[in-house]
């Protein structure tokens, strides 16, 4: 073996990888990343008291090097940790849960162009160093700094391929609407990261229609599915391709109209819930259970005229962003644990 291979194999032997090779990190490599941010290397970015462990800026830098990040990516990585802390689910232990979530990082602003963050074709796929390594940096840190390794403290029953990396840019240039970070009070010239706790990514194949309601009902079919329901209701990030976004905007729809309509159409009648044994909610755990469960309580939907529920918690629980190529009518529903009506964790990247 040559010295490079020996170093890579050493990292494998120490258990420092996600299964793919990592870039061996020395002090100088970590210092090059730390020099890009105005943060104390010992500052805690995310604390997990239940594990007696914490992610510091230094540990985040070491793992970002190992993930393959260039030094100039590090301000985005730090913003991702700030966003993950604000979003709240990782600190509550979701990364240890059997559900097996990943962290979706949405990048907005000029930093996309500066670093080459892909917001267009093959958005969720491979081929772009910034997307691949910024997302991977979070997972490697979780494994190495927090000890969240599978079959140990990461108890995911199946997990998701997004656990390797899940980092996308918003396609602001081809969106008819203002970008997410501007919706939430930042300037267009600011850059931002928004972290979301995600489960599945579902494809929406909709190349067939120019009718806004048909398109959105097609999307809503993937929102209103019983398999997504563990608790009473859920939330989603709907990633519209530019073609779909323009179809809607040309017909006069704003993003909030899309969210409201998708919420309304996320209705599941009680009999559909009953067929899946999820027609009620446990008064104790608030998990969905069958009506004949001893703790069962029927949860009335918000619409007294119809017996059933909206799978989406509220219109605000349907976050709409625009990304992907302008070449077809393919969008995505990303099933998320949040936001549940609160502000998404839009976090500015320090200049």
């Amino acid at each position, binding site marked *: 073996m040559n010295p490079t291979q020996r170093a890579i194999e050493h990292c494998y032997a120490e258990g420092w990888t996600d299964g793919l090779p990592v870039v061996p990190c020395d002090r100088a490599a970590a210092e090059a990343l730390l020099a890009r941010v105005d943060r104390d290397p010992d500052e805690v970015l995310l604390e997990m008291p239940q*594990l*007696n*462990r914490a992610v510091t800026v230094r540990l985040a830098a070491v793992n970002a090097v190992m993930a393959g990040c260039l030094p100039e990516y590090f301000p985005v990585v730090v913003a991702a940790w700030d966003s993950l802390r604000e979003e709240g689910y990782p600190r509550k232990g979701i990364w*240890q849960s059997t559900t097996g979530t990943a962290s979706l990082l949405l990048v907005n602003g000029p930093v996309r162009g500066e670093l080459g963050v892909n917001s267009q074709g093959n958005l969720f796929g491979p081929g772009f160093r910034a997307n691949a390594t910024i997302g991977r940096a979070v997972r490697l840190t979780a494994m190495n700094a927090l*000890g969240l390794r599978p*079959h*140990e*403290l990461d*108890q995911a029953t199946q997990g998701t391929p997004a656990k390797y990396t899940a980092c996308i840019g918003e396609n602001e240039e081809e969106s008819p609407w203002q970008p997410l970070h501007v919706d939430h009070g930042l300037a267009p010239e600011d850059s931002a990261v928004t972290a979301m706790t995600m489960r599945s990514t579902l494809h929406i194949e909709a190349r067939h229609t120019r009718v806004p309601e048909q398109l959105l009902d097609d999307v809503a079919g993937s929102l209103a599915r019983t398999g997504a329901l563990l608790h009473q209701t859920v939330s989603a990030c709907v990633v519209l391709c530019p073609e779909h976004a323009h179809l809607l905007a040309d017909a006069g729809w704003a993003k909030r109209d899309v969210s409201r309509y998708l919420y309304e159409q996320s209705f599941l009648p009680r009999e559909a819930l009953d067929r899946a044994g999820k027609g009620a909610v446990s008064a104790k755990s608030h998990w969905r259970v069958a009506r004949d469960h*001893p703790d069962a309580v029927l949860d009335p939907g918000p619409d007294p005229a119809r017996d059933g529920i909206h799978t989406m918690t509220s219109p605000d629980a349907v976050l709409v962003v625009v990304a992907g190529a302008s070449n077809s009518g393919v969008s995505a529903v990303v099933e998320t644990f949040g936001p549940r009506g609160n502000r998404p964790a839009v976090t500015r990247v320090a200049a």
Partner: protein
Amino acid sequence: MPAVSICTDAFRITAEAMARTYGFPGFQYVSVPHPVASLSAEGIRQRVEEMLPRVLEILGVEE
């Protein structure tokens, strides 16, 4: 208040990793057969009856 941790056997590796994390390797807890989430009330009652002697043993209760 004295307490006993209870988990299903599917979580033993995690339970032992958590005990090591806190500096208590060999921490005693009760493990019951997996699963419990889908059991009937009667099934739950049986699990409780089966585990009770072990819970009392860890608490140091003498018969």
